[in-house]
């Protein structure tokens, strides 16, 4: 196993996102570029970066129009940043936002960059709609046709049924199963109960609501299009209300269906950004580092042929990440596991607590470990906030970095010099998982 060589540190200096909206809600007519631009502009305003040449901006979207070519660069050009700021796009499904953060912080650690902005955006409201393959071929033929006869022949090939749009799907291309159906299989495999899922969902809502009420997001979120808070947030949620919902996934399985709209994340629109920099750049700009990005580890599972569920890759990434850094779960003060579904989180926790799984799949002496619930998603996560795919990584990193810094300041005041650490874990389509380790600065 490689050991990370000592590099200079890359710091999270701050973040900005727009409140996350339910699909078809306030951002229904906003494009990916609109949302990413406004998220960048909010960051610029918060940190006084107008006209600043940032080393590099990387962001991306999962659902992209063909017009979203060079999305990030176009968003930078529309923002208050210097037009001399380079930018590039990334797409790694739900891990997009975290992947941009990891790659940019690595460039900072290597000394290739002094500053960077990572980000992500997604809209399921303004999703691209493609035409059918037959119509597309006919239209392309038509555009190539030179004579009237050729044009007529090309047009004549179009049938009325070809005009039906081919809508985007959230199903896996290789299994044709939706993400929820995949997770329902894993949920059943690990025997996760409905009650446990509802409890996790409730905690997510209550924790997120409490953080909003405490003003925790005043420095992390800029309102957009009249939306001031995350729209999916139900501050008045209760176990009774959640228990009343009908299951939506796993209805065809032999086991009882346990996944509902309440313990699964809804389709969401939103954008997030994270400001990164070296210590020198931060000092020169009078910015206080919140947390250092220490390390990251990706994993993937063979969800088509193997035993592992589609969203279980982080279960393998985290032990490798921690081992490489000489840490265990107990060394982490904050654990952020993206709540694609409540049961995704619970399956990961169950796998880590299993002696058999630890020995047989993780190559350990026994169980990997147990996650203290009071360290898990302390300010809520995707179940309550929503999950605009590529924007989730930025949301989580900015939130947890602010919390790490808050704790660090309080602890230093009490004479304790040990910096708290946090784990960020995000599962993604295609059997992917990306995890990162952060430490308070």
């Amino acid at each position, binding site marked *: 196993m490689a050991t990370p060589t000592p590099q200079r540190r890359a710091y999270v200096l701050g973040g900005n996102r727009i409140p996350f909206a339910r699909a078809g809600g306030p951002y229904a007519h906003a494009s990916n570029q609109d949302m990413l631009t406004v998220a960048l502009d909010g960051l*610029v*305003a*918060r940190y*006084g970066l*107008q006209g600043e040449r940032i080393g590099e901006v990387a962001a991306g979207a999962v659902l992209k129009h063909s017009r979203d070519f060079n999305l990030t660069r176009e968003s930078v050009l529309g923002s208050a940043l210097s037009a001399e700021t380079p930018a590039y796009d990334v797409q790694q499904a739900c891990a997009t936002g975290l992947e941009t953060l990891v790659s940019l912080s690595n460039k900072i650690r290597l000394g290739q960059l002094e500053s960077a902005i990572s980000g992500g955006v997604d809209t399921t409201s303004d999703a691209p709609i493609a035409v059918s393959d037959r119509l597309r071929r006919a239209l392309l033929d038509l555009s190539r046709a030179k004579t009237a006869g050729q044009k007529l022949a090309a047009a004549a090939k179009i049938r009325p049924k070809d005009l039906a749009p081919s809508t985007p799907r959230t199903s896996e291309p290789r299994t044709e199963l939706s993400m929820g159906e995949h997770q329902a299989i894993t949920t059943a495999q690990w025997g996760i109960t409905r009650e446990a899922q509802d409890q996790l969902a409730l905690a997510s809502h209550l924790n997120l609501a409490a953080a909003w009420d405490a*003003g925790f997001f005043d420095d992390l979120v*800029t*309102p957009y*299009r009249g939306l001031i808070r995350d729209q999916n947030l139900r501050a008045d949620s209760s176990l009774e209300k959640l228990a009343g919902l009908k299951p939506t996934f796993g209805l065809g399985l032999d086991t009882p269906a346990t996944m509902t709209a309440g313990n699964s994340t809804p389709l969401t629109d939103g954008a997030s950004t994270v400001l990164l920099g070296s210590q020198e750049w931060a000092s020169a700009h*009078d910015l206080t580092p919140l947390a250092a990005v220490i390390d990251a580890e990706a994993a993937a599972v063979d969800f088509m042929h193997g035993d592992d569920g589609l969203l279980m890759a982080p279960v393998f990434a985290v032990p490798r990440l921690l081992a490489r850094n000489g840490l265990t779960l107990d060394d982490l003060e904050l654990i952020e596991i993206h709540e694609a579904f409540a049961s995704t989180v619970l399956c990961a926790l169950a796998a880590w607590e299993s002696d058999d799984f630890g020995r047989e799949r993780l190559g350990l002496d026994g169980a990997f470990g147990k996650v203290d619930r009071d360290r898990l998603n302390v300010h809520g996560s995707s179940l309550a906030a929503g999950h605009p795919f590529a924007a989730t990584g930025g949301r989580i990193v900015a939130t947890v970095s602010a919390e790490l810094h808050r704790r660090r300041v309080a602890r230093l005041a009490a004479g304790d010099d040990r910096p708290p650490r946090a784990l960020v874990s995000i599962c993604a389509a295609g059997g992917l998982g990306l995890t990162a380790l952060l430490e308070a600065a």
Partner: protein
Amino acid sequence: MSDTYLRLVNSGVTAKIAKQLGLPRPSPLQRYTPGQPLVDGPVLVLGTGKDTDAIAGLLAAPTADFGWDLDVHRHATPDTRWAALVLVLSEVVHPDDLTAPVLEAASVLRSLKSGARVVTISRPAGDDDAPAMSAARQGVDGFLRSLAKELRGGSTGNGVVVADGVPVTAPAAVGALRFFLSTRSAFVDGQLLAVDSETGSLPDDWDRPLAGRVAVVTGAARGIGAAIVDVLARDGATVVAVDVPAAGEQLAAVANRVRGTALQVDVTAEDAGRRILDHALARHGRLDIVVHNAGITRDKLLANMKPDQWGSVLAVNIAAQLRINETLLTSGDFTDAPRIVSLASTSGIAGNRGQTNYATSKGGVIGMVRATAPLLAPFGGTANAVAPGFIETEMTARIPALTRQVARRLNSLQQGGQPVDVAETVAFLASPQAGGIVGRVLRVCGQNMVGQ
């Protein structure tokens, strides 16, 4: 927010009709743009004694000698179109002493250019003065306020009242004179501004008097607050734009426009002062100017007033300012000629039916700055208030159309002011030259009929 009437009576056929009908014809006011001349034409300086010589000398001296390089005349000459008239009356000891300069001024009133400035410089009438001198000094007050009501064509009349013992060339006195002469004071009319001390310093660059200063503006996302941000930044300040988190979208746009920073914080929060100060110190290294602009209205007749309508207005408009000021004053970090400028209102002076809560809070602001100013004096600091009258904002756009039309005409300039007019006055009181103006209220109301 556009004044259709003002447009109609100043253009084409409708202008002719309005003239024939004898309708009030407000003149479009000239506003300040950087680089424009301080005064656009010859200036007549009248008065007696060495103060008059000193003022005339300042106005006429070349810029290289720290003068204002104006075309200054000491006597009325026929066929001259005067851009400004300065009456130095600081040395009068008897009402009879006013006669000569006033009558000479009278002879040129019909020769004033549109948008001309009349400024008096006088001394305050004190309890210990000889009765004749006190009468002469107090007489200036009535004279100026009446003269301002006679001026037409967007011209204004204002006075600088310099405390005994303070030279008329003290920084705040000449700062106030320059402000009243310039188009920055377009909607300030009929006001007498007191200069209390020699504190303050003249700026190196009159176009950027706030260079190097860091300012915080609350309620900065929209309207008057956003205009204040723009003007402070134009005058050289680095601005922290503050507003409630819910207004963050507009706030970010304002901050980006002026290359400042946005801080989303509710001013009524317990720790608002601390957060504002921390942000300013961490990001910009200092804090020099605080503009308390954030304010709300919850208009209701007192008989119908609900506890929340009373409470929320008082909480935002005055209690929050008191709490933030206390944090700043006890921090030890607000000590380099600091400036506090609070937004009061003519409603807080004259009262307004249906606004007992608002007027209480705004009256409170006036009391607050009066009592806060002495606490800042040891650091060369000041606290002052600006009291807007009818200003064209989203707030006044919600007034019913007819009421709004009437409200606009109830001042000597017969129109509503613009947010920038309030902002210019705030910027003046926040400037280094205004150091000798302490605990005062300056109205920006076009000389509204109500109150002082």
